């Protein structure tokens, strides 16, 4: 199954429906989906790397925390990630890396600010073709 995402929209929400052949791929697809809400990712290069650590008492919390890492590095270092790697996923945490480029208002166009990933209507489960994650973000 190809790694893919689509954006879901309700009145005041934006959600990401991400699919992959396994949960790691689905999370990477969700990560790309989140970045695409912030900016047009196609113009960014994978030039700088950051380590991600997403602890949590369960898988749902770990996924939400992983996505919040993307927002943290965007707000603090201005980094737009276009390449994600998951190194390990244990019962306690997800660790991995993301590569991207710094946002530059002179060269890049900003789309929509995202405050946080949430548990609102959150789903992460196996489907016939692999794995699916649905997550809504507060914009």
């Amino acid at each position, binding site marked *: 199954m190809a790694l893919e995402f689509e954006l879901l929209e*309700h*009145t005041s929400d934006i959600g990401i429906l991400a699919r992959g052949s396994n949960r790691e791929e689905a999370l990477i697809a969700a990560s790309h989906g989140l970045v695409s809400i912030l900016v047009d990712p196609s113009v960014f290069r994978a030039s700088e790397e950051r380590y991600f650590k997403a602890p949590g008492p369960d898988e749902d919390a770990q996924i939400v925390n992983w996505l919040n890492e993307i927002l943290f590095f965007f707000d603090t270092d*201005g980094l737009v990630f276009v390449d994600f790697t998951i190194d390990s996923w244990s019962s306690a945490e997800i660790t991995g890396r993301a590569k991207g480029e710094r946002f530059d208002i002179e060269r890049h166009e900003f789309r929509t600010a995202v405050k946080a990933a949430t548990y609102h209507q959150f789903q992460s489960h196996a489907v016939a073709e692999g794995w699916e994650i649905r997550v809504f973000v507060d914009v």
Partner: protein
Amino acid sequence: MHLEKIDDYRWLIPKTYKAGMRTDAVIYANERLLQAIRRDQSLEQAANVATLPGIVGRALAMPDIHQGYGFPIGGVAAMDDEQGVVSPGGVGFDINCGVRLLSSSLTAKDVKPKLRDLVHQLFRDVPSGTGQSSRLKLSEADVNTVLEQGPRWAIENDMGSEADLDHTEERGCIAGADPYAVSDRAKKRGTGQLGTLGSGNHFLEVQYVDEVFDTNVAARYNLEKDSIVVLIHTGSRGLGHQVCTDYVAQLDQAMRKYDLHVPDRQLACAPIHSPEGQRYLHAMAAAANFAWTNRQCIAHAARGAFRRIFGESVHLPVIYDVAHNIAKRESHIVDGKQTRVVVHRKGATRAFPNQPVFIPGSMGTASYFLMGQEAAMRETFGSACHGAGRVMSRSAAKKGVTAKEIQKELESRGIIVESLTREGLTEEKPEAYKDIESVVDVVHNVGLAARVARLKPIGVIKG
């Protein structure tokens, strides 16, 4: 969902609607607004709020209610200070998102000939958008002082006067704010954002008084028809977002310890007097103080821009600054008894008697200045609505219209807009929001807050 009609403006979700509801929920809306409200999950969310331990009175929803995360936006709930819980979801990610209104000695006639220059100057002087765009260079010690003391820090650094504090809710500082309850990540996220508007529905507008409904109250604030005012709508930026993110995670874990169960994980909560609940309240207070400082710094930058265009004699005193995403320790009469409660206002404005209440409309439409009334103390723990509320998704708003077209259309109505992003214009177009007049009608007719003046924009700065 079947709602019981109480009267033309009040609708009841009885506590028998759903297992676990500890009290009824009341929705303030007219039939037309209710039709829009029914399109999302906000009524279900109001019922969920009624399940929270220690809730007193009823769970309440204002006429601008729409679907949020955990709590609906436009939700109010008071928790018993001894027995109740505190929930970061009842405050929201943008802690102390709020509104500050400045008056001026200028009239629309004075401003219109120089409007384009003014809007351009404001756009240059008030940073918007994302990332670390603040022009203030804060040390770690400065950040801690801001979190602890609020806008007093700005005033001590020549960005305002004592009078500004006199006209700010809580004088811009909630006691008990603890900078050490705020994570380093939150501080890192927010430090470079102090004095910035952000994006989304945040804005700074130059407005004129279009109509005065209460001349006595308006005169008290030197307002008459055509007076120029400045409305600033923003919050605690990335710092507040991270505080909420951190504490939703912490309280989510604490719920196991206290054997608490909620119908939606985003309602994560802890007993008010637990170490976790207390720590959240200390961090939330610090983030709220940061937000008041943010609006203070933006007001200072706006004053500078006005002086540059209209001369040094121009003054822009604060009419009032009020939060609409916050949890406050207050005393209210519940079942005839004075009771200490923590009032969660998420997308709801405190509306104590004789306290100014500001309801920003969507870009290009009217905003309202109202005055809190006694009925709010009896019915809504001293709360009223906070805005218009979206009716259209962002992608639906963007469809078939360009930023340039919106800018042109607004210009043809005499409104100059500068926005950092195209989305700031297309997603926030006036039609994307509920009709502000209906929302204000409900609040006024129920007696929660009374109309003082309608304000219309002529200049808009957006992220």
